[in-house]
């Protein structure tokens, strides 16, 4: 299929349809509103279900209802809306139901602003709601990758019966880029399973439930979930390493839109002869700790790591966890919807390199 020029939010909607998702429940919020606006028309064409819910609280619970009936389903929102979904995410994860949640992050805290940010990293990777549960979190840095990761999110959520989040920022949702989609109708249908509810046809009844009144039973349930999260961590980490060909003295770590800006900045400073590489986590959860540590260990000499985020330093904690004190970690961040330019990032790198060389 040839490439088409599409806005990120609309491309995400199309990617979901191509992935075989025909059930959408959501609520308008900037900067993701084009997702429901696109899907209301598109789902009509493919005979799907579109519900504009009364709130994000309702959206995520509608997703729980649909997911429990064994259909491919999703919701999308942006930061304050994801906060409202926290309760439902905990229940869905506890009930081990597959679904996809898209978060087009905007600046917070509170009502914050509508411009791009990465300040929901903690929220996405540390659990939105209560209890020991985790969500698979994928962070695209282009519209094409948003399409690819949406496809992957459905695959992983069904493979592990766990919510998967595509955690992008408003920049990805709002910009237009040429994208290529998987073939329409090529998605595999939801396989038969032994957990979803519906017409029974003589089989034993089933229950979708997260209540365990016996502490031992709940303990066992948590151990089962933990084993699953460990399996996901062992098998599903993804990352990109850029600019390592001839060795490097500094390693920049960034994800999503910020990583893309860093790439341009790195091209700029490498042209000046500075040896700088980029490590970009694609899965924010599971976090690619091992690969990042390897990349840190490959820094020549005692050069530092520079973590750059559109937040006040959230992924920074994972970068430090990966380093385990083995290396100096520097941080540069912006908030409020202020997106650093490649020149600003290049300048930061140059400043850091002065100390290195």
């Amino acid at each position, binding site marked *: 299929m040839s490439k088409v020029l599409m806005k990120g939010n609309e491309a995400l909607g199309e990617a979901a349809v191509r992935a075989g998702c025909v*059930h959408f*429940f959501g609520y308008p919020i900037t900067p993701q509103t084009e997702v429901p606006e696109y899907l209301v028309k598109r789902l009509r064409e493919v005979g799907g*279900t579109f*519900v504009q*819910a*009364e*709130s994000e*609280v*309702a*959206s995520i*619970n*509608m*997703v*729980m*209802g*649909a*997911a*429990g*009936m*064994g*259909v491919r*389903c999703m919701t999308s929102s942006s930061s304050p809306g994801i906060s409202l979904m926290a*309760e*439902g995410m905990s*229940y869905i994860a506890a009930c081990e139901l597959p679904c996809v949640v898209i978060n087009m992050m905007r600046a917070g805290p509170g009502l914050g602003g509508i411009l791009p940010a990465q300040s929901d990293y903690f929220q996405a990777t540390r659990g939105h709601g209560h209890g020991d549960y985790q969500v698979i979190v994928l962070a695209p840095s282009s519209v094409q990758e948003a399409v690819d990761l949406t496809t992957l999110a459905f695959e992983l959520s069904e493979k592990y019966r766990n919510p998967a989040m595509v955690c992008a920022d408003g920049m990805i949702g709002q910009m237009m880029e040429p994208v290529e989609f998987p073939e329409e109708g090529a998605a595999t249908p939801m396989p038969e399973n032994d957990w979803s*509810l*519906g*017409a*029974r*046809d*003589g089989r034993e*009844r*089933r*229950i*979708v*439930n*997260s*209540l365990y009144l016996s502490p031992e039973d709940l303990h066992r349930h948590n151990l089962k979930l933990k084993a699953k999260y460990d399996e996901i961590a062992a098998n599903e980490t993804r990352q990109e390493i850029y600019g390592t060909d001839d060795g490097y003295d500094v390693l920049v770590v960034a994800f999503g839109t910020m990583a893309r800006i860093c790439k341009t900045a790195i091209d700029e400073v490498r042209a000046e002869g500075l040896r700088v590489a980029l490590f970009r986590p694609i899965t924010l959860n599971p976090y690619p700790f091992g690969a990042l540590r390897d990349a840190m260990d490959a820094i020549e000499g005692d050069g530092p790591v520079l973590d750059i985020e559109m937040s006040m330093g959230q992924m920074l904690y994972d970068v430090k966890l990966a380093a385990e004190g083995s290396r100096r970690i520097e941080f540069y961040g912006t908030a409020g919807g202020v997106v650093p330019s490649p020149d600003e990032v290049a300048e930061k790198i140059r400043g850091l390199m002065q100390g290195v060389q």
Partner: protein
Amino acid sequence: MGEIQIAEERCKGCGLCIDVCPRGLISFSEDLNEKGYTYVRFDGDPAQCTGCTMCATACPDQGIEVWNKAGKQTFVNTTGLTERMTHYCPGCTHGMIHRITAECLEELDLLPRAVGVAPVGCSVLAYEYFNIDMFEAAHGRAPAVATGAKRARPECIVFTYQGDGDLVSIGGNEILHAANRGEKITVIFVNNAIYGMTGGQMAPTTLAGQRTTTCPDGRDVEETGHPIRMAELLATLQTPAFVARGSSHDPKHLLKTKKLIKQAFQHQRDGTCFSFIEVLSTCPTNWGLAPQESCDWVQDHMIPQFPLGILKEPERATAEVSG
């Protein structure tokens, strides 16, 4: 003569069957059953029993089965419920409302494709009792879960079973909008004017002056407002809907309520509309009343505040309240 069989081990000793037997043929045993309850027994003249089924209808615990004079079984426990004993307090009418809901599904042959959504509150464990596929939803979110479930599988009969804290308080938004969208689901709303599970706090439906642990001097409407009449509120919505209120406090009202629930499921089966059945119920434990006193309290105090009847039907365009 008719005949009844009492499952002693299921009896919680609420005594509601004793009060409803027109011939006074049932009484308390002097012994305790395995669970420690003073169970009931048939100790009248067998020739006096007409097999009227009043006792079985009033039993919240599926503890009585009945045969008529011709030897035909006239009260059979529904297959729509599991055999598991409920955790409900003695005399709580949840058990009866579970039963009539399950009976309606069974009589309409809808059990194989019924999917229920349990709430948070006393009936949180409803998924253990309804013998069908069940969700257990977050507090107040059952109508949203049911929306997703029904939209995903329209061929299923989807219902929620919710109490007053769940539906009127924390879930006020979800029920309002599910009703207004006209989701093709059925909502069974059990109103006992108090929070049961957490130990007797004020509910949005607590009556003016009614004492609870969080309004120990009685609900002061100046400070906390009047009880919310949920059925009336939903009946103001334009979207076609079947909205009705029944009660569970005696066999006559319970059977009338069963008819309403049956109509509601028929509407869903026929793809007609959203349906909402409010059922007045008791909370002997937290009201501090004996089971039969609780039933009398529903008649004397709740029904004047929450009038019974059909408030809205698909074929009737305007809301209408009937006593």
